[in-house]
């Protein structure tokens, strides 16, 4: 059997490792469009950007893994009838089973490419951005999501002047209004000029104009506008795209049992989301997906296992570690259930029809792990969670009494 993995980042590497660990002895090829061997991306907006980690420290170890690497080779098409992946250089690679792990790319600013206007997705982007973040440089970040906020925090550590603009009324939308407001205060306390509810109307560096009429100057502009799945190469493949790659619970594509997918581009039904299709762009899910898809690819369809752990994700901003599990954005509302007396550590929970669906913690790793275990055991009733937390001497403490209205 020939196993081909397209995508040489975390999910692709884990798929290849899992296949070998499961005893696969056939030909294993990993195709990647970047020239680098697999590396981990979370430090690109944090430790690497601050200069505390080197690119070498971002390399994902793969030891003596027996694979044929085809790096610097973008996949341009998939011929399912012939069981072949088409590469940009014209080569065709035959497969018996295929794992698609081409991930996402950064969404760019509409219009022509502009000098000084950049995005952050891969190692080369991060090194270029780092070089421009010299003390006193003026950085404008468009988008106050994970990447925008993490880069803002990293840039402030390097004494860069930072302005963050977002059309939304708060940073970090998935955290909800209350935690989002905490996040906004955090950035302002660290000297970030945070401009919410406004967008960019004109870019002519160093001149920038915002939609509210404000004029400011910037040396570098980071577009942190989210990510788009890299699925264009599959357009004519007949696979179901939405624009992610639509799979069943076992990460098998709905159209073809010989083709599986893993990582940021997978759209799959998750039990904690009531079986609705979800797509998650976070490290742990990519790692778990890769591992599962690599194993499942070797099995007959009926023997494949589902991916059902609650997604875990995190963000580090200044001295605050934000961690989350499940689907907090699916909750009817987020409620702070635990709050330390000094207010610096907290746990917020979100329920849907009385069932816990998502949890967010600030500086409370052990507590978050406890909630994660509750969510992993299937549906958890919110009233039971509340009782358990109230009775738990290890909890951070109850929140202040809620003010009516």
């Amino acid at each position, binding site marked *: 059997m020939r196993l081909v993995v397209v995508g040489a980042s975390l999910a692709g590497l884990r798929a290849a490792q899992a296949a070998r660990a499961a005893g696969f002895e056939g030909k294993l090829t990993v195709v990647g469009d970047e020239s680098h061997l697999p590396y981990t991306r979370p430090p690109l907006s944090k430790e690497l950007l601050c200069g505390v980690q080197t690119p070498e420290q971002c390399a994902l170890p793969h030891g003596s893994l027996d694979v044929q690497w085809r790096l610097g080779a973008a996949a341009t098409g998939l011929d399912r009838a012939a069981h072949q992946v088409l590469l940009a250089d014209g080569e065709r690679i035959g497969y018996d089973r295929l794992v698609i792990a081409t991930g996402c790319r950064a969404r760019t600013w509409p219009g022509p490419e502009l000098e000084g206007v950049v995005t952050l997705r891969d190692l080369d982007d991060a090194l270029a951005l780092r070089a421009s973040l010299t003390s006193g440089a003026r950085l404008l970040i468009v988008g106050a999501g994970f990447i925008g906020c993490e880069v803002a925090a990293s840039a402030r550590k390097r004494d860069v002047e930072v302005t963050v603009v977002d059309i939304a009324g708060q940073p970090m939308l998935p955290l909800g209004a209350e935690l989002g407001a905490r996040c906004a205060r955090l950035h302002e306390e660290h000297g970030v000029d945070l401009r919410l509810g406004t967008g960019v109307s004109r870019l002519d560096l160093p001149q920038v104009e915002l939609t509210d009429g404000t004029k400011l100057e910037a040396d570098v502009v980071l577009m942190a506008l989210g990510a788009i799945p890299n699925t264009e190469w599959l357009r004519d493949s007949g696979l179901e795209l939405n624009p992610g790659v639509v799979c069943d619970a076992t990460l098998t594509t709905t159209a073809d049992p010989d083709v599986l997918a893993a990582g940021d581009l997978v759209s799959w039904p998750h039990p904690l989301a009531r079986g609705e299709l979800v797509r998650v762009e976070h490290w742990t899910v990519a790692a778990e997906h890769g591992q599962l898809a690599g194993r499942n690819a070797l099995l007959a369809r009926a023997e494949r296992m589902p991916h059902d752990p609650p997604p875990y994700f995190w963000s*580090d901003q200044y001295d605050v570690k934000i961690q989350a599990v499940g689907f907090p954005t699916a909750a009817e509302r987020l409620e702070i259930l635990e709050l330390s007396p000094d207010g610096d550590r907290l746990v917020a929970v979100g329920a849907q029809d009385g069932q816990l669906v998502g949890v967010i913690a600030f500086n409370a*790793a*052990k507590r978050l792990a406890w909630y994660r275990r509750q969510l992993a055991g299937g549906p958890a009733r919110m009233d039971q969670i509340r009782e358990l937390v109230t009775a738990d001497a290890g909890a951070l403490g109850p929140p202040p009494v809620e003010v009516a209205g």
Partner: protein
Amino acid sequence: MKIHVDMNLCQSHGECVLVAPDVFDLGDDDVLVWQEDVPDDRRADMEAAVNACPMLAISIEE
């Protein structure tokens, strides 16, 4: 085998605790504690913990 965790890298994500709760744990201060000497028959678990760590902080020393 010996388990090494680079505490300059560890960010208390707790992935290793999920994989092997008898070897890794988070203290009440959220700092990771772990058992350094692990029997060789736990190799598969320890390799899973190494791969699960988002900070690439865990390594196995023979």
